[in-house]
């Protein structure tokens, strides 16, 4: 009798576990695809400021000191001169401005929490190099000229446009295969006469340019 009761109890337990595993949770969450059509451009972005190393440069492994809320446009203008060289061709700067914007937009939609701080990006090369009030006239112009556009997947999904330094005077084909833009490569192609959209199309395949309505 006792053996039968134990068998019945174990069977019920297994069944309950299976039901728990199979049944959806009590509070279902909807994960709608965040596209450029249903997602407005962020107005601000939360930037974690990491402490500087002894030389006064932000340390990618330093502790987070505070989180600064920056207007999104200001953030892009304060990142671009620290990622691209302001003396480069304007087409390379515009391609870089688009990458910086889409990178920031994607991470604004996917914030992280580290050491109790919730933020979108930090000010180091963990994300993008950011120095407050370091904008330059030439890079500001590049950011302004791509403001109305977004470079997304064909279905409009907002993606992270990633980039790396690359090599000077080189088309940097290897970065194209990795779906990353080479910063030096953008300058190379701009000097070859390509515009910013052609540069983006070279490094990011199967992406499309969309106009932002919001």
């Amino acid at each position, binding site marked *: 009798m006792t053996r039968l009761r134990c068998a019945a109890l174990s069977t019920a337990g297994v069944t309950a576990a299976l039901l728990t595993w199979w049944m959806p949770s009590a509070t279902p969450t909807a994960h709608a695809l965040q596209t450029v059509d249903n997602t407005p451009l962020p107005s601000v972005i939360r930037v974690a400021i990491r402490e500087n190393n002894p*030389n*006064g*440069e*932000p340390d990618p492994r330093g502790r987070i000191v505070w989180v600064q809320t920056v207007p999104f446009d200001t953030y892009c203008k304060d990142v671009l*001169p*620290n*990622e691209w*060289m*302001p*003396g480069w*061709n304007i087409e390379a700067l515009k391609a870089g401005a688009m990458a910086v914007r889409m990178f920031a937009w994607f991470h604004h939609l996917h914030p992280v929490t580290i050491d109790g701080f919730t933020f979108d990006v930090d000010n180091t*090369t963990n994300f993008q*190099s950011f*120095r407050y*009030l*370091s*904008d*330059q*006239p*030439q890079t500001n112009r590049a950011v302004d000229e791509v403001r109305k556009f977004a470079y997304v997947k064909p279905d409009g999904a907002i993606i992270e446009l990633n980039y*790396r*330094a*690359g*090599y*000077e*005077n*080189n088309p940097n084909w*290897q970065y194209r295969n990795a779906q990353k833009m080479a*910063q*030096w490569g953008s*300058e190379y192609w701009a*000097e070859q006469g390509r515009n910013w959209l052609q540069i983006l199309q070279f490094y990011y395949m199967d992406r499309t340019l969309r106009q932002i309505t919001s």
Partner: protein
Amino acid sequence: MSKWMPSKGQAALWTGAVLCALLSIPAPCPFNGGPQRAAVPTLAVPTGAMSEPDAVSPTAVPAADNTPGNRSPAHPQRPSTPPSKRPPTGGAHPNHPTPPTPNRPNAAPAEPGSTHRPSVPAQPPSAVPGTPVQPPVGAAPGATPAPSPGVAATPGVIWPTEKLRIRVIDGRTLQPLPGAEVVLIETEQRAVTDRNGYTPWIDAPIIRNPRYRPMVQELHGQLGVIAYKNGYRDSVHLGIRMHEGARSEATVWMYKIGPGDTRIEPVLYQVPYHHLWLIQLADKFRSKTQPGEGPERP
């Protein structure tokens, strides 16, 4: 009695000795028994080639290695930079037939509209608080004076110039500070901020650190400024990036002196190097056997 006739070898020796004496060739001559000189690296260039204009001299710096393995050749300037913007390494300049003397670092002539005020110890009247802010002579706020051919911030070297303006703000309120005097350290140029906190556009040199020239030249020049204003700590702002072909701006934070400030010293802010150049510098000396973590990873 046979007549003495020199052999072929002896005739060659005599002929060589006579030629050495006549032509006074400085190269060691094995025939005259003189002291052997130290080995001097000479190039085995035919005599005819040396008369060509582009002949390589023994003291010439080797050309940059453009092999594919060397991705960051020691270039004196960015290749995309037009030749007209390249800084000459000597004192000779097309617009400056006489090179600047070392005792006069500000050898560039002051042009109308520029803010060149070399070695003026007294403050300009506009820097006095309470008086209306007057821009420097001939330079209205936002004015763009004619570009000067170069500034001799380094004795014997005339650097190319580009436009620069400084914005001075309060470090706590982030409000613009009018009437602050900004001194460009390298050229001693002085400018005063307007009511928006901006100095006029000035012609500032693009100075690259000569230590790195043979290796990986810096991608941007670096300058330093000092901002002075009554009631505020002096602000020293070093490492301002200057680029060929692009105007530059820099923001200087100044901090108000409070009643609790008993030790008042300048505030330093150092602009870090651009990380693209740091990548180039590290990549330049990467050995093939110890590749480390290069820029291609991940």
